[in-house]
């Protein structure tokens, strides 16, 4: 009788990230270059030196939610191997949102660093 839909997406790999940060990373990845889901997750892993690994199960729900919000759009294209795949790219709205989120993240991480760097007595 008890049913709930938990919305927190938890990653099963090394670091746990909050949903918003995941969105930001995905958007940034797409800002570099339009690509499909698999390529995007691999790119992120590659850039972050294997630290950020988005679990496959959380990737697609996140991508579709971004599409729903209107921050990315999708297009069916043929991959290099000749198969059909869905390629996502950033919209103008998405670009703006990404800028905002990046600013916020910068401020947040700067503040956390300052606190953490305080010398203990």
């Amino acid at each position: 009788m008890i049913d709930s839909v938990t919305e927190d997406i938890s990653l099963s790999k090394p670091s746990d990230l909050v949903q918003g940060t995941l969105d930001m990373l995905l958007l940034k990845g797409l800002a570099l270059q339009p690509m499909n889901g698999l390529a995007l997750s691999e790119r992120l892993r590659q850039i972050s030196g294997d630290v950020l690994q988005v679990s496959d199960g959380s990737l697609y729900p996140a991508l579709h939610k971004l599409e729903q919000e209107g921050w990315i759009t999708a297009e069916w294209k043929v991959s290099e191997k000749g198969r059909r795949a869905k390629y996502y790219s950033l919209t103008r709205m998405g670009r703006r949102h990404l800028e905002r989120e990046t600013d916020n993240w910068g401020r947040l991480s700067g503040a956390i660093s300052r606190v953490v760097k305080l010398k203990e007595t």
Partner: protein
Amino acid sequence: MMRLERWFNKSSFWLRLLFHRREADQALDEEIQFHLNEKTEQYIEKGMTPVEARRAASIELGGVEQVKEQVRTVFVGAWLEIFTQDVRFGLRLLRKSPGFTAVAVLILGLGIGANTAVFSIINGLMLHTLPVQDPAQLVELLHQYPGEPAFNGFSWNAYQILRDGNHVFSDLIVGSVNFFKVRADTLQPQTVFGGNVGGNFFQALGVRASAGRLIGPEDVQIGHHAPVAVVSWSFWRSRFNLDPGIVGRKIVIGDNDAVTIIGVAERGFYGLSDEAQQDIWLPISLGPSSGWGFGLLGRLKPGVSIQQARAEMAVLFQTIANLPDAGPFVTKMKLRIEPAGHGVSTPLRAMLSSPLLVLMVVVGLLLLLACANLAGLLLARAASRQHEMAVRACLGAKRGRLIRQTLTESLLLSMMGTALAMLFAYVGIHGLIRIFASGRQMIGVPVHWEALSKPDWHVLLFTGVIAIMTALLFGLVPAIQACRPVSAQPLQETARTGESRSQRRFGKSLVVSQVALSVVLLSSAALFVGYLLELRNLDPGFRRDHLLLVTLDTAHSGYQTAEYARLSEQLVARLETIPGIESATVSSMSPMQGPGASASAFETGHPDNAHSVSINNIGPRYFETYGTPLLSGRYFSAEDKDKPPVAIMNQAAARNCFGDENPIGKHLTLSHITLTKGEITYEVVGLVEDAKYNDLQQPAPPTIYRYLAQQTFSGSQLAVRTRIAPDAVAAAVREVEFSVLKTVPIVRSITMNEQINASIVPERLIATLSGWFGTLGALLAAIGLYGLLAYTVTRRTHEIGVRMALGATRSDVMAMVLRDALWTVCAGLVLGAPLAFWANSVAVSLVHGLPVKSPVSIVFGGAVMIVLALVAAYIPARRAMGFDPMMALRCE
């Protein structure tokens, strides 16, 4: 701009999903498969076997179906699935408590059904617009004689003056209504309701022809007698089966020559009133040209307001009133202009519009009461489910989800109630129409009762809106309550008491509001029932018991007037010999039958002091049969037949024409008698008491009684005073009548009491319905109060135990409960009394003649509620009294 773009992207996404669900699903599948295949290939390149690679890729993905499911929750469809889940959950919950569900659905069914029924009739009668072009621009002209209802009827002269002199109407349409006797070689002789219309009638209304052409200006030239006719679409279908050869068909109207049907009006057009539908139209040149029977309808010029029209036309009408040959009635008339987009005013509408509005308010209040009652019920249930809700909240259910679920329950109840309501509404509408139809028939106008009950999208919309609003009204509170305590404390607290303080306060205020509404309903019911009783016990100026009324159809008897007069005397004499019959008489009119002839009366030689009077032509034993006392002078006798005209007056007429002087022996002149030309002088031979003429609500009008034997009219109303029950002699009366007047059929035979009852159908209806609804409302409020008290007693068990331990007696405890009840009722009274006062004043303004007795009715309502409260408090009080102090103290 940014928001717009974002909205656009979002909506195109949603729209695509909505309309291409299956494709979206397939695309998703393909996308996931691509990912899986690519990953598998990568693992194969790394050296795994195909099977292992596939497995590893699948595990990493987390299962294709799960991923798809997760993505789907982002889709619109997921929302619907959650909604379906809510609905199923709600249904399960309602099934678990069938008693509650049944009661709630029943209450909702009655409340919503009553509202739908009344609104449906109001819609059919008053809100339906005519199927013409721009109905909002149409207005009707009415003349109003002081003291009488406004009537749309003018003389031809007046029409011409108004038509030629105005600047506010782009068209002034003229028409008169009539019953036509129609005959054709393929058609049985039958009576059809229709009218004579002016040349611009169809044009100005914007009505098109569905066959042939319609009457136009060319058919209505002066001197040019165009023998043409237009019929309605349903006439074409029912009488001629949509035969295309209808155009050019010849039919015979009345005793005149044949006319040619030149066309059929567009489907759905039946003249200017839905209740009095016309099926045939002839040019106005073929109809009567005298009298004040021409109805006028105007189309306002664009930009002209109705007030402007009223101002200009009032001035124009004055010129008519100032004409030298204007009769005494015309000079006192005023012109009125009313919007006619919903059809012209008809006697039916005049009779029913106020009662229907009153009923609408009453059932609306009842529904509000029912909502408050249901809200209380649901609140109590929500309180008992608080514990469950808290657990669910702890286990992660989102607040919005909980609200949505409880609101869905309310919507479900509302939907079920609405389904039941449809059934009640159907029964209710037809019952109401049957009651209306039993009332007094309007002479000369047919009534299409079906027009009142046409189901319409207005009604469906109304019902839907009400259903949703009702659900919100009684469902919102439990929903809000459900979302509040999302913390650990409720788990302990609510397991015990199940309610918070604010909830209790709200529950109490719900009961208070129910009591207030109930007081309003009860007091208005008291007003209406009181009015009805007053009407019933009113002295109408004659004896209404033991009186049988028989209406004869003298139109085609074939008898000459003198012959008929002789035969009717014979009939009266024969009737008086029947055992059980005291006396019998013949007259033109019987009281309460409806409007009759009228005239302008003045003392002979004093024409400036003329007054309007009603006229009745009577036989010898009229006043004895009806039981109206003679005050002075004498009755008519057989000798008067050959003497100069004589008349009997009633007090009101005598006061008007002769002041305080004794009118006996004086002379009276009547002019402008209905259907009569010229003036006639009468000698006054008798003075009788005032008697009601047309209806009970209005005071007895000044009345002049003339001797039938001196007239050229045939009396068609037979009245018989009986010693035994009137129905017992009805058969004997029929026999005798048939044997004396073989060619005169009996149209109707009822008792005087029945006739009076038929004349007050609207008042009876309001009284009955408001009485029932008031009772229902009071019962609901009492039940709500009982629930509250019972619950309070349970909650305060511990406290009662303490009091008892400290020395309170049983009667103290009972007093405590009763005090609680009375305080609640008083709060309700304080709220309800001013509301009832206001409602009563609205009722008085709507119902003509309603006596203002607000304080009495409000006191009545309050008294009833107090009594009911005491009754409702009885059981909880007894329970409280019966508490064992030790048990009560132990109850935490």
